[in-house]
Each structure stands twice: as structure tokens, then as C-alpha cells.
């Protein structure tokens, strides 16, 4: 899994190497648009390279399980990810509110996608944003920031090591935020949205730059259940 280390305050961008031992099937992933920044550099997932994939997202041959992690939601309540999103199509993203690149775009894209769905469809979907910068991203900050996009989005924060561990089970290697000498921060975040179906299996990933039409294409298919 790729990590993207955001370069704040002049630190050169670095992209860590895939560390999970998953073989990368080079090329041939479906044509998700990727942003021009390095944050979308995507590798490390084992993807289904079959061109006949139904989905616009990158389909994994080995799905992830939804992390069984308990964090604090944006109203200050304890929130267990598995219990709190049970039965929902869950779109999970690790990011942070001060993020200068793909996090805001990703949230805006998901919000626009949900607005375009029927209320019945939207009711079957949870968007979950887990902070990779939990010290600055308090419940109140998450509440306001996510509310800019969609008040129904679920924001989670908590101890960094708990979050780091949960991300790690999804192949997302985040590191503690570092405050730099000039006062800015270096913070890591995930580059992909992971979609878990109603059964809690995460077998689709969406790179930064995935568009509203691409999500619109896949969501009804995901809601209908995986075609196996």
C-alpha cells in the first residue's frame, strides 16, 4: 500500500514504498482518473485486472475486513466502526481537515455524489472520515468541517496509535503528525476511499481524483450486492 506523506512547509514529498507484501498487478486497473499530485500514486493493492470489471473503482481480489475499532465521533460519543455502520455501504477515508490537497476534494466529491442519489439510496450509505491528525481534529473541528460537505458524514477521531493500527489493517500506513520548525505540520493521509459493502467486505478502492460520475456508476451496483 502506498503512503503519501504530505509535504507541508517545504518538506520534499516522499512516497514510501509498498510494505505489505502484496503483489502489485501492474497496470490495467480501471480508468480511475487520478489527480495530478503525487497523492494519488496508487499501488500495493492487489487489484482485479480483468477488463470486464463491472466497477469503475479498483477491485481487490482479496477484500479487506472493516476494522473493528472504537473511536470518538464528531458529537463526542464513542463510535465502533463495525457496529456503527452495520448493514450500510460504507465509504471510508483516512484524512485530516487541514489537508491541502486531496482530502477536501474527496469529501466534496462524495457529498456531490450522495446529493445526486435518491433519499432511499443515500440512507443505505455511510461516509466515514477518520482523522490522521487527531490532535488538531477534535470532535468539534470534525463536526464543522464535515458539516460543510454533508452533516450526515461521520467523523472519527481518537488516539493516534488506535487510528494508525486500524489504518494499518487496510494497508494504509500513516505516521504521527510532525510539527516542523517553521510551525507547519507534516501529516500523512490515505489516498483512497475504500468501499465496504453491506456485509462489511471492502473490495473496492477509489483513488484520489475519482469523479462523481464514477461513484454514481458504482454505488447502485454496490447497493445491489456484489455480482459474483
Amino acid at each position, binding site marked *: 500500500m502506498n503512503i503519501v506523506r*504530505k*509535504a*507541508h*512547509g*517545504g*518538506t*520534499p514529498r516522499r512516497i514510501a514504498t509498498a510494505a505489505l507484501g502484496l503483489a502489485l498487478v501492474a497496470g490495467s486497473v480501471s480508468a480511475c482518473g487520478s489527480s*495530478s*499530485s503525487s497523492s494519488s500514486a496508487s499501488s500495493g493493492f492487489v487489484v482485479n485486472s480483468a477488463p470486464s470489471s463491472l466497477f469503475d473503482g479498483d477491485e481487490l481480489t482479496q477484500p479487506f475486513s472493516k476494522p473493528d475499532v472504537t473511536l470518538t465521533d464528531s458529537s463526542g460519543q464513542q463510535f465502533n466502526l463495525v457496529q456503527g455502520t452495520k448493514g450500510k455501504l460504507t465509504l471510508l477515508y483516512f484524512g485530516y*481537515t*487541514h*489537508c*491541502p*490537497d486531496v*482530502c*477536501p*476534494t474527496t*469529501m*466534496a*466529491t462524495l457529498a456531490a455524489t450522495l446529493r445526486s442519489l435518491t433519499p432511499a439510496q443515500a440512507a443505505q450509505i455511510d461516509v466515514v472520515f477518520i482523522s490522521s491528525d487527531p490532535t488538531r481534529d477534535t470532535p468539534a*473541528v470534525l463536526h*464543522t*468541517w464535515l*458539516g*460543510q*460537505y454533508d452533516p450526515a458524514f461521520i467523523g472519527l477521531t481518537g488516539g493516534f496509535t488506535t487510528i494508525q493500527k486500524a489504518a494499518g489493517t487496510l494497508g494504509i500506513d500513516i505516521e504521527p503528525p510532525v510539527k516542523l520548525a517553521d510551525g*507547519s505540520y507534516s501529516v500523512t493521509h490515505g489516498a483512497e476511499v475504500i468501499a465496504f459493502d453491506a456485509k462489511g467486505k471492502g473490495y473496492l478502492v477509489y483513488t484520489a481524483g475519482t469523479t462523481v460520475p464514477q461513484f454514481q456508476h458504482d454505488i447502485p451496483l454496490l447497493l445491489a450486492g456484489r455480482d459474483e
Partner: protein
Amino acid sequence: MSSGSEAAATTRRRLFAYTGAVGAGGLVVGGAAGALTRSSATSDNSGNSNNSDTVPAADAGNEQLAFYGAHQPGIAAPVQAQGWLTAFDLKPGATAAQVRSLMQQWTKIAAAAMAARPLSEGDDAMAYGRGPGALTVTVGVGASLLTKLGLSHDIPEALTPLPTFLGDEIDAASSDGDLVVLVAANDGLVAVHALRAMQRAAAASVATQRWQLGGFGEASGILPSPTATPRNLMGQLDGTGNPKQGTASFDQTVYVPADGGPTWMRGGSYLVYRRIRMLLNDWDSLDRGAQEAAIGRDKLTGAPLSGGTEFTAPDYEKFSAAGSLLIPPGAHIRQASAESNSGATILRRPFSYYNGLRADGSPDAGLMFLAFQADPATGFTVIQQRLSGADTLSTFIKHEASGLFAVLPGCEDGGYLGQALLDSA
């Protein structure tokens, strides 16, 4: 203006030969540079033909914009020297017929004042002897007006309230409103003359004033060239990234298209107002390099830190030899750019305000931020969602008031502002 005889009938001052220049009912503002059409020299001043790009001071007061047209002229006109934004609420029990009557009165006042003609009712002579001064009067309505008039079904989706953004400290009493009027001119008295007439008309009938903010832009002729980008109180050029007038993208960015909806907004625009206080003492404590890093541009020239001149496209992927991004990740121009915001663009037309000290001793100063766009959801909102968290500049400002208004389409001679909405109401 479509009628020369109308203008010739009465005028506050000697009639200048502007009618030919103004043309037949269209916007005077136009051309790639968006320069004002200026009145030609007087007959006794005919040797001094005005053929340069700059306006001689003696002519500055004669700049006139046509009131009638497809769009209200105050949207595309260059920012004037003085401007007041004033919001009104309907008095309890106000009817659509009464609002229609007020709009008709406001239309008459705007048309006359923009042509420097005496007002037909109760002119207070405040601007007697003065020219049009590039006066514009721009009228908009809030969603609350439609609700109060029983027209909720006519509320455009674009008037969906703005979300609360991270860091907002919005004062409700100085935000929103049923009606809004932006009156601006290159002369304060000319602007207030028109505004006060509109306030009197409102108070005498159906509306009470809700809040007001005054600000200033550029005096005519003060900039290095008529097309130069203005500066704000932070000393930064402000408006470099605006869409360029006379282009298709300008119209697409700013106006509801002729086949857009709702029908009563065709040719109109949506105004996002934010009173953005600048934390000038904090800002002043930064050295110039830190200020430029927060913005992403050279302070004096406006050139992006990736190089070139003011209008060189910023290169957001360019690194220094030391390996850092030349335009830092949190730089305002990066975070506000269309590239970062799914193509979102807005027309910014701000005034500055500088109103003494607050209780904490800091200046009550900043930007009367005014942005026009065809759809705020894909314009201001998308941009501010990103800026609120990621923009370095956001740590030097506070958003303290807010408003979202449907700026009505322009009208033709004989019609009135808001006619398509109110005739059927």
C-alpha cells in the same frame, strides 16, 4: 439608456455627449478590459479629446454605466471608489404587491441616479451638480423574501443556505436579509444620494434596514493602468484570477444562462457576501517572505512564486532546488485555484473596510467580500470548503458576516427589477 431625449430633458449638470457612447440599451461595460465607456469631452473642452487609457480627473465624474440591459451593470463594472451594501427585511404582513411597488420605485431611482438625472420624487439635492460617477445600483433578494411572500416553490436550489464553514464566527444580525442593495460609485456623495433615496422608499413602505457595511475600492485613475488588479488591506493584489470580461467563460461563471432556471433568474447571478475581518496586526508581524508564502505570489508584482509575471499561470508542481514547492501547499492561490476545486471559479468584486478599533485594540478592518457566480454550490461553497481548513491565509482572517442573495436580472426601459418574479406573484 435607450432614450437620448429622456436624458436631455433634465440633468443635474451640463449634459455631456454621452448618449451616443452609451448606445442602444446595452451594457456600457464591455470589451476585453472591461473599461468604462466615458463621456466625451464637452463642447467647450473639445480640444481635449479623451483618447488615452486613463481618465483625466475632470472627466472621472462623468463616467456613466447603462442601467438597462440583460444583466444588472453593477456585477461586471470595475470596482468603484466607494460602496455600501445594505440589507433590508420586510415589515410583518408585507404583500407581494407592496414589494412590487418598492421594486418599481427602486428601479426608477436607479435608472435616474445612474444617469445623473434628478430623482422624480423628493430629490434631496445631495448630488446636485455632480456627474454619474460610475454609479451602479444592484438589487438582490434572499430566500427569506420568497418564503415570506409565499413563494417558497420559487426558491432556487442555488439559494440553499451556505453551510457553516470551519472557523466561521458569523454574526446573524449582520448577515442575510430579505433584500439587498449594493450601491457604489466613484464618489461617496453620489452613491449615498441614490442609496438614501432607496432607503427612504423602503422605510416608507414595506422594509426596514437590517444591516449595512460600507467600503472602498479604487478612485478612478489611481491605479497604474485602468486594467490593473486592485490591492487589499494586506497589500496583496486581489482579483488576478478573476474571469476576464468579454469572454464566454465570464458569462458562464457569472450569469444564470438564458435557458437556466428558475426563469425569473435568467440573466441574474448569485451573490455571496462575507465580511472577512483581516487580523492585520498578526499579518503585519510576518516578514514579506512569509506573507508571500501565505498567498503564493510576489507581493509587489503579483507574479506567482513559481515565476513569471502577474498573469503567468502558476506552476503548482514546481520545486525549488532545495526540494520544496515554490508555491507552498497551503498557499492561498493554490487552495483557491480552479485546479484544486473541480474547476470552480467566481467573480470577486470586493471592497475594503477600515472602521476603527475593536474592544481588543485590533483594527476592525478587512474585506467586504462580494463574489458573483451562476451557482454558489459549484462556486464559492466548493472553494471555501477547501480554504477553511487548508488555506494558510485562513489563519489571518475571520469570516464574521455572511449572505447569499439572488441578484435579479437586468431590466428594460419600462420594466422593473424583479418583474419576472413579482408580476406573477
